[in-house]
């Protein structure tokens, strides 16, 4: 039957029936859970970020608690979600064409050009994205490649926390992604339908029932 495993979460000794995620283990001892929880298993919201040390390992790794199995003798610390004031605010509508995107990177993320290549962001990413390369590609103006690197980013902000230069890599990646969509995506079928609606040539009629 179910094996009971013991681990340590935020300084508490916790016992839980395996298999369970770290998040399920964190709820098992009756502690009120009001933060570091969101999608509970899908691994898309980035809320349950934590530091994990497995038995016999010296290295501490980052993980999302909802998608990581609780293991015996594991040590876990949740990282509270903080929201410091954004140092560089931009308005996506103000980036008006792709000629300006490099300028926008320099202006809104001036630290990005000073990346120390310490790989702290790569090690911090629980999704295994090549964050540092994404920063370099953004600075170099290779925006499509940068956008591809950040495609599956869940915005957990661990790279932002890890970066000693204060680059905010995930937010840089998101600005590049947003600018590309806002400046290049012009679907012809959508444009035609919007024209039809604006001309009054297409309206849903609540009375005209089959």
């Amino acid at each position: 039957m179910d094996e009971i495993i013991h681990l340590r979460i935020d300084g508490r000794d916790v016992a839980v029936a395996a298999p369970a995620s770290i998040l399920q283990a964190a709820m098992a001892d009756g502690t009120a859970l009001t933060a570091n929880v969101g999608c509970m298993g899908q691994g898309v919201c980035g809320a349950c970020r934590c530091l994990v040390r497995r038995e016999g390992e010296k290295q501490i790794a980052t993980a999302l608690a909802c998608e990581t199995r609780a293991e015996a003798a594991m040590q876990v610390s949740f990282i509270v979600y903080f929201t410091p004031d954004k140092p560089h605010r931009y308005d996506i509508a103000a980036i008006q064409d792709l000629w300006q995107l490099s300028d926008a990177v320099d202006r809104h993320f001036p630290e990005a050009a000073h990346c120390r290549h310490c790989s702290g962001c790569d090690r911090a990413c629980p999704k295994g994205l090549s964050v540092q390369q994404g920063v370099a590609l953004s600075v170099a103006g290779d925006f499509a490649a940068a956008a591809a690197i950040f495609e599956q980013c869940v915005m957990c902000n661990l790279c932002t926390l890890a970066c000693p230069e204060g680059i905010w890599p995930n937010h840089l990646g998101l600005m590049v992604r947003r600018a590309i969509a806002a400046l290049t995506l012009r679907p012809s079928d959508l444009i035609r339908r919007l024209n039809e609606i604006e001309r009054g040539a297409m309206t849903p009629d609540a009375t005209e029932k089959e």
Partner: protein
Amino acid sequence: MRTEPMAAPMAAIPFSVALQTWQTMPGQPMRPSDSPPQTLLERFHPDYAAQATCRLMVGASKGARCHPLLARIIQGNALIGDVDLAALAPVTTDILVIGGGGAGVAAALAAREAGADVILAAKLRVGDSNTVMAEGGIQAAVGDDDSLQRHYDDTLKGGHQAADPALVERLVGQAPAIIRWLIQLGMHFDLADSPTPGARLLRKRAGGTTAARILSYRDFTGLEMMRVLREAVELDRGVTILNRHPAVELLSNDHGHCAGAVLYDLEHATLRIIRARAVILATGGAGRLHLQGFATSNHYGATADGLALAYRIGARVRDMDSFQFHPTGIAWPQHLAGGLISEAVRSLGAKLINGLGERFIDELAPRDLVTAAILRECAEGRGVVRDGQVGVLLDTPGLLAEKPDLLSRQLVSLAHLADRCGIDPRREPLLIRPTLHYQNGGVEIDRHGATAVPGLYCAGEVAGGIHGRNRLMGNALLDILVFGREAGKAAATLAGTPLTGRVGLEHVRDWQRQLTYAGLINGPRSPLLYPAYGNFDLRAHMATARKG
């Protein structure tokens, strides 16, 4: 007689046997249907179970049908009284948005565009919501073979003609403009062709639609949408975001209008009074109530908070006995039960197979029918059992043999989920079972998101009437943005108006009188704020957190 999901273990075919049958069965025959759709629903859909409905005994919709578990919450007593508010200084704003998912953020952004000041309060963190978890996509009738009228007709028919036509008209009519708005904010969509000028949007089919109308980004459309929306609202200096601030009660003024809310600041373990010219409730649904013992695909915060708050101050509710059980939730392994497998997987061609190796329903029938059919297979002994978990098979190997490239691009979330289940979806089918997914009903609104209570607006899953009694895939992501923006725009017309008179909990005292007459005064308190297994109690939290 109805068989309930959590009843005694039912007869089912062992997984290993079912797997062997599936491997050797040629052509996957479709077992002919033995009952018309309505009979299937009545016999097997969880909404129709004997214990799934009761009548509300108090409030503006007294006499209306409601799920009993939900009725206990929305007929609950308030968490706080006047004494709790003594000596608290109010903060004032134009618009208070409660809820940090797609609807709340859309409302906040629309109110800002209209020039209002906004406070956005989130129970967890802005973005933590069902929106970010949405996989399949968003409906908008953009195709040559499609029209707003078809979208309108499909939505009404899918909802069993129970939706409010005026709301559906607004929903489908705004859809193309919403897609443009999302693109302008920087959201990507999949294209049917290479990204050249003139490229068209990739369109997928959804169950119950007559044209391919689902627009998507991979199979994590909600993540792409929510991270763009969140960034937009976090970068807007006119919006004050209060994370970890659940709303515990609304405030009313002398005229019975909604005039703000009382929030609980979890960080400082103290209540905060926000006085507002209008309040927009965007608190989402109720999946974490686990109605009838079902697992859920919903995020942690889906505990029906807004329903309780809106009903107590006098708003009407509708279709509170109607829920969507998504056909394909994970059944095995148990610790991942309820996790969602997107309808996109069936939309792309994956079949459902019972323990006898048969198909048993059109996989792209409306969700309530597919769910009822799966529960029928389980109830009648043709389900598949693995370590005590009963469900049917989702034939991903069949799909991926035909289209092997899907996993790396279009079905990233499926690959991720299968990996956590320890399954190779190219070789082994997933064991699935319906999961509690969506609250079809909710607070009655008009096309501007306004409720019967002046000053109170609702948007997103907390609102009802848009989907009738069954929602189509892709209409939820659309609904939250259409009515989120409508509510934000309408509420913003109150910006700058004078704040006069007293504000307090008069409506709570009135509500308590009603509860006393109905004999319900000793019932539970609400809103719940967190699921039962979240171990949260407001008074205990205030006491221990203050001790330091």
